[in-house]
């Protein structure tokens, strides 16, 4: 490589099992479990653990046929890690829980609930940070907010019809009840609950020149990253309660950027101003990792950004549909990606400059 980047991305595991395009992945926040979904309508669950020599091994633990009639486009874990939600092109949201057998041991994954309401393909689903709310979005241009009630009951709290086109993705703020959605109409919308009234759109972020495919909040909640068909990733800084401003545009991607994920990172140096790592991937098949930090020397609110790792052809010649950081402590350098080659894989980000010298 002509570049001299401080970190390398190396393959940890190739996770096969799907029979069609792998669309999306979700790391369980509480235990060693990775969920992957596909156009083959199934969800695969992989467990992982270190063997005696410190190597991380992944094993297929379960395959959920789901019963969805079409592509399972995205998956999301509840914060407790006990419930999995699936969004399908069959316009439904599935809620999955693991049954306990008579001895209290975990058994099969069962559909605990099926949320109907969207008119056309569901594209994305997400749990709020407390797990009390679920958001879903669809080609029907709407975003639905569901309240999670005991016994897998869900009540629709609002149907937000703000976008003029397909809604591609939804993402909850890491601590507050603020929801962001990205759309084929090139905009990002933010929503909050009015205690006296209903959920409403409190901000619209414009700037992308094409479809917004993916959104990810910074771990500290001060920034939102968006990935777009316009081949850029944009960073939006929260300057006021509902005031967001684009402060950075990450360029260099050669085709659509389908996915962006913002993790806490595992930096080689401890750094108070660190904002974590952003990973992006898309149609050009390259996984990129950027290091972000607050700019201490400037009054400007533009964070410092540095490309620290780049892996071309991560899925061979194929598109990468998703890239997601592992949220669990000790695994902050672990990424999962899924691609049109039907494969889900995990990658490790390793500091290596010292090795070269």
């Amino acid at each position, binding site marked *: 490589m002509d570049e001299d980047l401080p970190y390398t991305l190396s393959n940890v595991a190739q996770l096969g099992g799907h029979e069609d395009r792998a669309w999306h992945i979700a790391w369980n926040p509480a235990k060693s479990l990775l969920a992957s979904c596909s*156009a083959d309508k199934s969800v695969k669950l992989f467990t992982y653990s270190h063997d005696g020599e410190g190597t991380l091994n992944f094993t297929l633990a379960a395959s959920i046929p789901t019963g969805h009639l079409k592509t399972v486009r995205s998956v999301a874990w509840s914060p407790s890690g006990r419930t999995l939600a699936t969004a399908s092109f069959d316009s439904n949201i599935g809620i999955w829980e693991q049954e306990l057998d008579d001895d209290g041991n975990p058994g099969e994954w069962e559909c605990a609930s099926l949320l109907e309401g969207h008119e056309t393909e569901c594209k994305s689903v997400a749990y709020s940070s407390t797990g009390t709310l679920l958001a879903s979005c669809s*080609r029907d241009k709407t975003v639905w907010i569901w309240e999670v009630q005991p016994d897998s009951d869900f009540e629709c709290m609002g149907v937000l019809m703000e976008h003029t086109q397909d809604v591609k993705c939804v993402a909850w703020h890491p601590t507050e009840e603020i929801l962001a959605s990205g759309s*084929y109409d090139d905009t990002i919308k933010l929503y909050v609950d009015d205690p006296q009234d209903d959920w409403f759109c409190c901000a619209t972020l414009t700037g992308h020149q094409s*479809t917004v495919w993916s959104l990810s909040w910074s771990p500290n909640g001060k920034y939102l990253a968006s990935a777009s*068909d316009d081949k850029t990733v944009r960073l939006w800084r929260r300057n006021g309660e509902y005031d967001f401003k684009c402060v950075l545009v990450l360029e260099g991607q050669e085709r*659509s950027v389908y996915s962006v994920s913002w993790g806490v990172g595992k930096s080689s140096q401890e750094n108070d101003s660190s904002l974590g790592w952003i990973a992006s991937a898309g149609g050009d098949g390259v996984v990129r990792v950027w290091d972000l930090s607050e700019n201490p020397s400037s009054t400007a609110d533009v964070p410092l950004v540095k490309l620290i790792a780049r892996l071309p052809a991560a899925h061979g*010649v*194929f598109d990468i549909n998703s890239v997601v950081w592992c949220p669990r402590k000790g695994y902050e350098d672990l990424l999962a990606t899924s691609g049109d080659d039907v494969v889900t894989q995990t990658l490790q980000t390793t500091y290596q400059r010292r090795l070269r010298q």
Partner: protein
Amino acid sequence: MSGEIFNPNPTVFRSSAKSHSSRSLSTAKKSLWINEPEWSQPDQETDEEEEAIDQDEIFDLIRNIYDPEHPNTLEELHVVSAPQIDIGENRVKVEFTPTVPHCGMSTLIGLSIRVRLIRSLPTRFKLDIVVKPGSHQSENAVNKQLNDKERVAAALENPALPYSLLFVCVSTLRLILNLVDLKDAIKTI
């Protein structure tokens, strides 16, 4: 399907000779909905020398697609032509020219081209299907829709779409001559 005809009287050009390509392709006569990839995936041994694909070969794959409104092929209507095909490394860009700037069938035509190429070309090729700049009043909207992989994936999963595609094709007399193709097409959906 609305009964509106967007271009009731298109100019029909004479189709050029047989295959343009030096490599004869049997695909040109087959239905749009062929199932098998026409070029088998290069296996590991031959992978080192991937065969280059030229404009004419791509053109041969799409020239005989029928226009949804007329009993003519895209070649006869000058909707597609070899010079409008651009080939890069593992990338194929096809530009097509709607017969009229308000053609409501453009998305359908573009989708037909995309489906034909997805099902014919080795998977390493990324496809960009666009209308000729300035040839359509909703150029950006059409291009965006044709190149949104999620919409295309959903459309191909939706049984209503291929059926309507067939419907418009069936309505043309010319296709009756290709009944065999039609049977193949029906089998695949």
